[in-house]
Structure formats: C-alpha cells, structure tokens
C-alpha cells in the first residue's frame, strides 16, 4: 500500500508544518510513500531541501521501494525546481513521475547556490568556495551590506553546513537563494536553507546534556541548549562556537535563524518578523532543518 504526502502549493518554512504533519501520519506504518507535488506553485529553498530530507527519511524507514514523487505540473515551477538543482538530488532518492525539463542548474541567477549535497568536510569547502564570489555582489549591491559582510556570510554558511557533517550522522543538503520577499518584508532577502534527516539535536546532545535537564529533556530543550546556550555534544571547551557565531552575524545584520528538529522549532526573531521563538509539540520530523534569512538593510531601501 502507498501512503500519500501532499506537498503544499506554497512550500516554505511556514507550510512545512503542514507537510511534516502529513509526513508523520503517512510514515507511521512504514509503507511506501508518495510525495505529491503536482500542484506545487512555489517552493522556497527551505521547502526544497526539506522535501529531500523527507525522501531521505522515507528511504531509510523500512519500505524496500524508493518513495515516489509526482513532479509539479506547472512548467515554470518545474523549470525553477530543476534550475535550483532539486531534481539532480531527488533522482537518487525518489522514483520521480512527471516529465522533467532539460535545463542545467542555475549558474547566473538569484539562485546563489543550487541544492547541494553536504556529506563531508570536503563538501563544505566546495560550498564556501562557490558561494563567495556570487554572494559578494548580491550582499553588497542588492542587500546593502558592507562588502566585509561577505566573509561573515561564508562563515555562517560554513558553520550551518558543518552541523550536518558533525552531528547528523548522515548527509544533507544546502541551498542559498536571493529574492524579493514581497509577502513579508517588501525587501530583498538572502535565504540559506540546510536540511538533513539525521539523528537530530536531541539525540546528538543526549549523552552529555540529558542528565542536566532531567525530566525537561526534549527536542525543545536540546534546541535551546544548542542555539541559546551554545552547548555542544563534545566536551572540548572550544565547541559550540558555530551557532554562536551565526547568531552574532545575524544580530549585526538584523537576520533571522530558525532551527527545527524532531517535534520542536526554535527561532531568533528579529523585529521585522512575527515568528514564535520556541514551538514544541510539532509533528515529528527527522533530522534538523535550518533557516537563515538576511534582509536588505533598511537604509538602502528607496
């Protein structure tokens, strides 16, 4: 029997909860899953890497068959997903139904970094090396960030990707895109999305942190320990620098970070956003999904 998981028509970090709920329900009995994206109209980088993480989880969940994926039917959406590098990665995870266009992943567009696998430190080197030249132009000219902010951006990206290598116990994906965020801000933003279907923050921190939290130990507590307290699973005193460094960078440029893992989601919420700092009791979804948003600086907005 095949279980259906609807992919939201507008697939971003908000609608991800609807997707995660459908996934959690469908994945209960380890049947083959069908991810139905035929009606998809738009997906943010977060949606795309989140869908790959779901495919990764479904593949390792027990069903002998690869999960199915119905590709979007709208030609523009299909072209965009292809240019964003989604299908290059999805081909290994899903049995894809639908005709895919023959276009290469974007090299000159708002897709600063197409969906890229992150499995090892070498991949992080490639990501950081690829992003700097393209990000530099976007961050300085379009977002009004000081040119020096490019290196901080690369650092933040590197640390976000390293969370997969160091903690997930499996591979994951990263994607970076710039776009005009009309709905929320009426400004341009750069979005970094990182996702994996690995062990998640709670499992990663459990050996060193669960005793400290006692009965309060949960996905939410693990996220709070990692993002707010800078706790790491390693006892080395230098660990935990990565997320702290990302927070410093985002504080300087009025950015946002949100991390979802297991049944919880934590966010450092800037003034321009109305997100909730901590949500618990969400539908269970494997691994960790990280969202980083850096907005155009207000002084540069005409």
């Amino acid at each position, binding site marked *: 029997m095949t279980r259906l998981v609807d992919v939201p028509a507008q697939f971003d970090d908000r609608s991800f909860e609807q997707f995660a709920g459908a996934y959690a329900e469908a994945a209960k009995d380890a049947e083959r899953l069908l991810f139905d994206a035929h009606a998809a109209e738009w997906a943010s980088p977060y949606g795309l890497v989140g869908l790959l993480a779901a495919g990764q989880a479904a593949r390792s969940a027990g069903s002998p068959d690869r999960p199915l994926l119905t590709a979007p039917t709208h030609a523009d959406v299909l072209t965009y997903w292809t240019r964003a590098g989604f299908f290059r990665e999805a081909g290994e995870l899903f049995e894809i139904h639908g005709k895919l266009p023959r276009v290469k992943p974007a090299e000159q567009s708002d897709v600063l970094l197409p969906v890229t696998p992150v499995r090892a*430190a*070498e991949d*992080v*080197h*490639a990501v*950081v*090396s690829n992003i*700097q030249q393209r990000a530099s132009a976007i961050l300085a000219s379009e977002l009004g960030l000081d040119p*020096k902010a*490019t*290196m*901080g951006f*690369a*650092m933040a990206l*590197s*640390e976000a990707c*390293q969370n997969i*290598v*160091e903690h997930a116990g499996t591979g994951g994906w990263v994607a970076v895109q710039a776009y005009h965020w009309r709905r929320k801000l009426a400004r341009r933003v750069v979005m970094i999305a990182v996702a994996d279907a690995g062990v998640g923050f709670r499992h990663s921190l459990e050996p060193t942190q669960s005793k400290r939290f006692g009965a309060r130990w949960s996905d939410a507590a693990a996220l709070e320990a990692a993002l707010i307290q800078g706790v790491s699973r390693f006892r080395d*005193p*230098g*660990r935990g*620098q*990565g997320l*702290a*460094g990302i927070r*410093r960078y985002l504080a300087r440029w009025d950015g946002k970070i949100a991390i979802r893992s297991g049944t919880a989601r934590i966010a450092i919420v800037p003034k321009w956003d109305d997100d909730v700092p901590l949500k618990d009791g969400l539908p269970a979804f494997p691994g960790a999904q990280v969202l980083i948003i850096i907005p155009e600086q207000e002084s540069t907005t005409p």
Partner: protein
Amino acid sequence: MIQHIDVHAVLQESVSGVYTDLVTRPTGRVVRERIERAMATWQDPVTVARIDFTGVGCIDYSCADEIVAKLLRDRRAVVVLSGISEGHREAIEPVLAGHGLAALIERRDGSGELEALGAPEAAAALLHELVARRLAVRTPAGTIALTLA
C-alpha cells in the same frame, strides 16, 4: 629565533583541490597538526612563531578555534599572527575571547607593530610578558614591536 609559517601553503598541502578557505574542524585540525610538526622539527629553538595568514580567504569559527586557540593553549612558543584581514579577525576575536585567550597580531602596514586580540585581561598580560621577556619593546609611539627580526 622567529619561525615563519605560511598557513596558505600548509592549507594547500592539507586539503585536496585548490581551496583557499580555512573552514571545517577536520581541516583546522590537519592544518594545526602540520603547524605543530613544523614547530617541533625546526632546527633552532623557536621563541616566536609567526603564523602568516596571507592568501587565506575565509576562516570560520571552527578553524579559528581549532588552529589559533589550540596553538595558543599549547604555548610552545610566542605566537604572532600576521596577514590577518578584517574578516579573519571577525572569526578569531570572539573565539579567543570565549576561551579567555589573547593573540598577538602583526599590523599589515609593514611597521612590525603588534596589537593584542582577544580577552582584554589576557591581552594585557600577554603584552606585559613579552616586554618582560624582552621579546618586544614599547616604541616611543606607545605601541609594541618585536625585538627579534
């Protein structure tokens, strides 16, 4: 004796490809171990190790911790960082401050003048120690410069 270590060259030997960025903890570990080996096998006793970051692109926090903080904790020699850009400082400074450590930075203007970066107390103690050991002197302008060439 001052030993000069070219981090960019060490990085090129340490990772495959032609990457110029010091990112990821495994890379930082390999680079630090190579630096430590170079310091240990230098023919003369090393008093000052000038770790030159010229040509290095981005340094992330993990590498700043793995290389700079751990070399400083080891205290085999006085470590002077040179070729440090603003971006490098952004990664190194908070890492050192978090550890309560300080490092000496050689200014990029060719003056040879030093400044201390990191935790303020550790920075003051480091400069005091250097002058007391006569490895550095206070210049008439009130700055600090190495006495060794």
